[in-house]
């Protein structure tokens, strides 16, 4: 048939193209390019050079891919800029919902005495360290008055179960007040499970409350991290996990590990413990800096280098587990991969810009003080009130969210304008952590060249992207994690 034109008839004869904003990094001998919204492309140095010189041939695969991914546009793809605009808006649109995670510190009291914990008190004085009904009711009003359609109330401590009456009060108060508002309301208790009872579990079952607990590794490690009278934190936690699963359902309990110096020795024994306890994954959490870095206000590259080795070894071990047919995730990697591969923001508070403080999660202290984050509360315990952004007794939602005390650290830490970050290939996947940087360097922005936070993230992103892109088997495992 002659009526049909051949393929080359449709080839673009205008060879000029326009560069759209992008950044690059060198990883393991390859060049990684990322664009304005986090699309990525691995290539060679020569291609990068030819790309910026304007000499990339418009029928080469590199050209076609880079154009589809919106690194360049030409007269065939005038829609590119509009699409980039839509993607940018979509990515940022979630922020207008403001806070969905509301942490209620209902008691500072705890029967554990963990050395890395700055806040808990050994005391029987309920009046001094427990949240009152009056404060609780104000916190509920505050939490429900924001725009977020989803509200998760997390009970924290100390050990929140030591103030179970206030916990019950909050659940009832929130449910009742929410009837007219209609938000998607959920509850979770962060507890070490040492004082859990059948009565408490029955209550959780009735109100569909989930449990988040701590498990630092096998008994020796866990009990070392978490001293309590009887030295049986591990036994209580694992028995508790079993009980919760029996009463509430297998998936109603998740566990978080606190990473300490001692954990770094061998991630495998921790991962084995999580497997043994039947969890479907583990969060290889960054080292908490609050034990040493904040106190000494010193940055500790040694700690984060060691953590990165710990993470890499752990990840490799977890991939081996997956290859043997057992589905087991590493949640930190899964969160980052989701950002990279779907352009969707999984809402992880520590990897957002504007930062997650206040607008991602907010803390109501037992005494009515409002903090921008849990770490901000810890800082206050050490005498620095920088992140105390209001008080339930005097401030309403608007007062707090429009206050300079919240807006200053948010504005000043934005990655898009931060030195180094603004040129970093990982800017779209990373985030701002004004509390960490303030605690370690005295300003919200920090110096990224010396930042532990940056070291950890930069290396994690490089490692994950490189691993994802170079091995098919690993690739499909990673993909299964984000589904």
């Amino acid at each position, binding site marked *: 048939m002659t009526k049909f034109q051949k393929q080359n008839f449709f080839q673009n004869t205008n060879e000029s193209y326009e560069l759209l904003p992008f950044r690059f990094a060198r990883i393991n001998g390859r060049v990684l390019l990322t664009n304005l919204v986090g699309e990525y492309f691995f290539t060679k140095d020569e291609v990068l050079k030819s790309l910026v010189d304007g000499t990339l041939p418009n029928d080469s695969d590199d050209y076609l891919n880079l154009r*589809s991914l919106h690194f360049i546009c030409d007269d065939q793809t005038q829609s590119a800029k509009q699409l980039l605009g839509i993607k940018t808006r979509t990515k940022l649109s979630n922020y207008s919902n403001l806070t969905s995670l509301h942490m209620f510190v209902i008691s500072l009291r705890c029967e554990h005495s963990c050395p890395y914990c700055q806040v808990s008190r050994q005391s029987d004085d309920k009046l001094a360290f427990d949240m009152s009904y009056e404060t609780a009711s104000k916190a509920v009003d505050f939490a429900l008055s924001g725009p977020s359609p989803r509200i998760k109330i997390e009970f924290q401590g100390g050990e929140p179960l030591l103030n179970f009456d206030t916990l019950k009060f909050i659940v009832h108060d929130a449910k009742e007040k929410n009837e007219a508002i209609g938000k998607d309301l959920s509850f979770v208790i962060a507890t070490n499970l040492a004082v859990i009872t059948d009565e408490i579990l029955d209550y959780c079952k009735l109100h569909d409350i989930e449990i988040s607990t701590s498990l630092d590794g096998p008994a020796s490690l866990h009990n070392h991290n978490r001293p309590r009278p009887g030295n049986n934190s591990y036994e209580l936690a694992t028995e508790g996990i079993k009980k919760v699963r029996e009463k509430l359902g297998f998936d109603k309990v998740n566990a978080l590990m606190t990473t300490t110096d001692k954990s770094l020795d061998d991630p495998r024994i921790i991962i084995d413990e999580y497997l043994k306890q039947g969890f479907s994954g583990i969060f290889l959490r960054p080292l908490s800096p609050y034990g040493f870095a904040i106190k000494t206000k010193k940055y500790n590259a040694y700690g984060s280098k060691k953590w990165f080795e710990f993470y890499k070894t752990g990840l490799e071990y977890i991939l081996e587990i997956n290859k043997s047919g057992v589905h087991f995730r590493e949640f930190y990697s899964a969160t980052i991969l989701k950002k990279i591969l779907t352009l969707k923001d999984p809402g992880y508070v520590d990897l957002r810009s504007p930062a997650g403080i206040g607008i991602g999660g907010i803390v109501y202290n037992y005494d009515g003080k409002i903090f921008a984050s849990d770490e901000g509360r810890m800082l206050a315990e050490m005498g620095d009130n920088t992140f105390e952004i209001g008080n339930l007794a005097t401030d309403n939602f608007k007062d707090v969210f429009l206050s300079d005390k919240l807006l200053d650290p948010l504005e000043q830490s934005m990655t898009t304008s931060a030195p180094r970050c603004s040129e970093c290939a990982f800017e779209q996947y990373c985030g701002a952590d004004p509390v960490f940087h303030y605690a370690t360097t005295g300003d919200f922005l920090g110096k990224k060249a010396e930042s532990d936070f940056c070291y950890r993230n930069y290396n994690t992103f490089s490692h994950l992207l490189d691993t994802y892109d170079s091995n098919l088997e690993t690739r499909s495992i990673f993909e299964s994690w984000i589904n």
Partner: protein
Amino acid sequence: MLQLRGSTKDFHCDFIGHKMLIISDDSSLPFPLREKYAYILKENIDTNLPDGFGAYISQNASVFSTSKHKNWFHIPQYMDYMEAGDIINFKDDGSIWAIFRSNAKYNTFLLTERCNHYCLMCSQPPKSKEDSWLLERAMEAIELIPRDTVRMGFSGGEPTIYKEKLIDLVEKCRGYLPQTAIDILSNGRAFSDPEYARLLHKIDHPNCMICIPIYSDVPEIHNYVVQSEDAFDETIQGILNLKALNQKVEIRIVIHQQTIGRLVETCEYISRNLLFVDHVALMGLEITGFTRANLPDLWIDPYDYKDTLSQAVAVLNRSKINNSVYNHQLCTVNPDVEDNYVHSISDWKNEYLDECNKCSRKHECGGFFSSQILYKHSDHIKAFS
């Protein structure tokens, strides 16, 4: 395959032009209603026909030989599928057209054969002659279609060549058939005019999906497949305009030699840029129309691309985009696409090969178009044990 259009020499009519009627087999239908119906006589017996129907049809010519009635049509054997509820257009030259079949899962109305594309694999090769009577018939039929119809479609050619008149059709659907979901097959380019998209939006049809093909993330390939320069950008713009107004959009990709090479990239492009579309249809090649002429440039055995298809589906699933695989045989796809595998979209009788009779999963399999059986199908059809 059913033949929807036919003609008879054995008929009598006293009207000029055409008459669109619903078939009824109810001889006690209330008199005032009968005018709108064609009475069907199924049994092969000579009996007294009830009075007052708009027309009478039968497969038995002798029924009519003595008839006192004026409008009767002896329907040809190949249209014996006709039954009560079907909507039939009769013409004064004896042609008979089953425009709507009540027992079909899905009815499609061809609105025009004119098109501004000339796709390599077009199943309805474009013609340039004026055919707006097709739209007029569809407009008429809407008044007769049962209110409980779940879903139906309008195709072309390119229906948007009618501009405002197509919008009128949608409005009429909303008025007469508010419960019926409608699909409109379009190349989407007309909607690159935001004003036209707004016209559709103003009708506020509760369930109207515009089904738009994107054959590649590479404009040159898409333009080649549809044989039109500048098509890609305009189509993307059209989709964006429709979605900005919250209109439903489905993206259709026909898989063949020209599109398979970047199928995964195309799905990635969709999942990153057009995440908000309502559905993506991944369709196997039908061997009709232009496809037969261009077969050497189009054919690829589905069995040979099944891993690519799996990847494409995985990309869409990962982004939580609804997607379906149509027109494929179960034995040519990997098990990991089975959740997205759709048995059949049309009720064109799915046909099977001899091999299929041994197959334990025949009831789940979409089988073949008759054109595939006739001209080309996978070399790897293998019964499940």
